[in-house]
């Protein structure tokens, strides 16, 4: 601590220690806030299977499922001061043709829709144009956290992704379910996904499955011209 440079080094060195410890406390503070995500409605509204190509020059034609759905969920308890953004996604799942004998691939799972919900503290990171960005920022003016963003109410949503299967066959598949997933991305700390067991104040994600449904038969030729 004799000269200015030594004092600068020592002070900065201790600052890094303090910053690390504070970050650890912030990460641990997540455990104190209860997480009680709940799902009201998750159901399909319109399901189609059409034939199409994976890309324009492909000779292979595959069957694509277009699953429209409605969703009502309250994920507001996942928004705390340490939440940077919430990734919400819906998958369709169905058993493999080989049944449980197909090992790791006994269940097919494909994402049909996803969304990133930013916390007000991370709004500036959202991938939006200037006008949408302004609107997003204004929606949380003066608020450091905005749990109301976790209340999802989506009616007859078109899927973002049409799904297929490596075999190219998907029509008339039975026992398909939709599953809602979340992924909390904190500013500091660990990523957390859906929970299957209660962990102290963090409760299991329940009712995040839709009823089982069957994919319909292939649509006739004249109906897929628009694609």
């Amino acid at each position: 601590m004799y000269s200015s440079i030594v004092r600068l080094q020592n002070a900065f060195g201790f600052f890094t220690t303090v910053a690390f410890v504070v970050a650890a406390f912030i990460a641990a503070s997540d455990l104190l806030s209860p997480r009680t995500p709940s799902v009201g409605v998750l159901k399909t509204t319109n399901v189609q299977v059409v034939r199409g190509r994976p890309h324009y020059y492909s000779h292979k034609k595959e069957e694509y499922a277009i699953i429209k759905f409605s969703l009502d969920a309250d994920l507001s308890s996942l928004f705390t001061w340490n939440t940077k953004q919430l990734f919400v996604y819906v998958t369709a799942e169905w058993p493999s043709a080989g049944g449980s004998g197909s090992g790791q691939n006994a269940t097919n799972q494909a994402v049909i829709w996803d969304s990133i919900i930013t916390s007000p503290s991370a709004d500036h990171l959202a991938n939006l144009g200037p006008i949408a960005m302004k609107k997003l920022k204004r929606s949380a003016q003066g608020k450091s956290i905005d749990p109301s963003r976790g209340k999802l109410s989506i009616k007859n949503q078109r899927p973002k992704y049409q799904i297929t299967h490596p075999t190219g066959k998907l029509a008339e598949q039975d026992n398909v379910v939709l599953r809602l997933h979340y992924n909390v991305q904190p500013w500091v700390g660990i990523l957390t996904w859906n929970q299957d067991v209660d962990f102290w104040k963090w409760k299991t994600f329940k009712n995040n499955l839709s009823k089982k449904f069957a994919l319909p038969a292939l649509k006739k030729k004249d109906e897929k011209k628009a694609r």
Partner: protein
Amino acid sequence: MAEQLLDQARDLFEGQIDFEGQKLVEVLVNAALTLVGAIAFFVGYFLQDIKLAVYIGLIGTAAVFVLVVPPWPFYNRNPVKWLPVGGITPPANLVVDDKMFR
């Protein structure tokens, strides 16, 4: 004249402080930075605002740097009193490393 100016500039850059000042700086750095970290965490937690916590932490740390890095006068209140150059002869019974100095 130029030499004097250079000496002054070097003193300012090196920013030497006395032993008591060094002791004080050590305590100040540890206490103040810990305090800043604690304030940042608790204010952030109770207002549920992580940006505020970051700003408190960074601004507080900058303030601590301003407090401890420059050689402020209060770190130099106990200057070491050196013996005058060639002023007095060493005492006759001065012993260093078991050797008698004459």
